[in-house]
């Protein structure tokens, strides 16, 4: 009986190793697909909040006319 248990433990180890390998491969395959998302975010970050006429800016324009 004891011998049978040892054999099962070995099989579990092999199963775990193969499952880990599959997970690694999936991560590698999924890697490039996540890159376009990152570049899209880069494109978005260039379009930040820009010039908007505010009371502060109007006040500045007024002071330049003195």
């Amino acid at each position: 009986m004891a011998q049978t248990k040892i054999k099962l433990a070995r099989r579990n180890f092999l199963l775990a190793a193969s499952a880990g390998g599959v997970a690694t491969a999936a991560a590698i395959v999924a890697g490039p697909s996540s890159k376009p998302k990152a570049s899209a975010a880069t494109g978005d970050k260039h379009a930040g909040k820009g010039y908007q006429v505010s009371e502060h800016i109007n006040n500045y324009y007024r002071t330049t006319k003195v």
Partner: protein
Amino acid sequence: MARMKFLCDAERCIECNGCVTACKSEHEVPWGVNRRRVVTINDGVPGEKSISVACMHCSDAPCMAVCPVDCFYRTDDGVVLHDKDLCIGCGYCFYACPFGAPQFPQAGAFGLRGKMDKCTFCNGGPEKDRSAEEFQKYGRNRLAEGKLPACAEMCSTKALLGGDGDVIADIYRERVFKRGKGSEVWGWGTAYGPGKPAAAPSPAPKS
């Protein structure tokens, strides 16, 4: 869409360097880097004139044209910015810029150049607006705060005008109109002198 521009009124500039100080203070610009400078023409001669110079955010920017890694971009407001994560510090933009705007911090011994730094029109960089990363790399983003560049706002005589190109051009036009002079300060004739008459054709050689 507004197009951001600087314009320095040489009749008003008193060379106080307040704009230079405001810029350095606002963005915590490192030692040795000057995003803005005051240039005096005919220094010491009666009638000398001073103007404040930084990146002029050119509509057809030479820096952008020569950059080998294409790190420059123009915002919707016409502000020329660059991405320091892409910059390789080659210095091409420095040679291309007619205003000497690109600056390079010393990154080590033997004249090793760091990443280029220049005026951002107080509009930060590609990082998230008003984030710590943006401030650390490019300085404050005043435009996102509904303000204009610190140099222009701080100018005591309002010689340095900054903002929407249409608005500041109109402000300058009104000043020139009131003074009754000054329109000759800017333009082709001032920059390159009066045109010379075309040279007479040389006589044909006698055979």
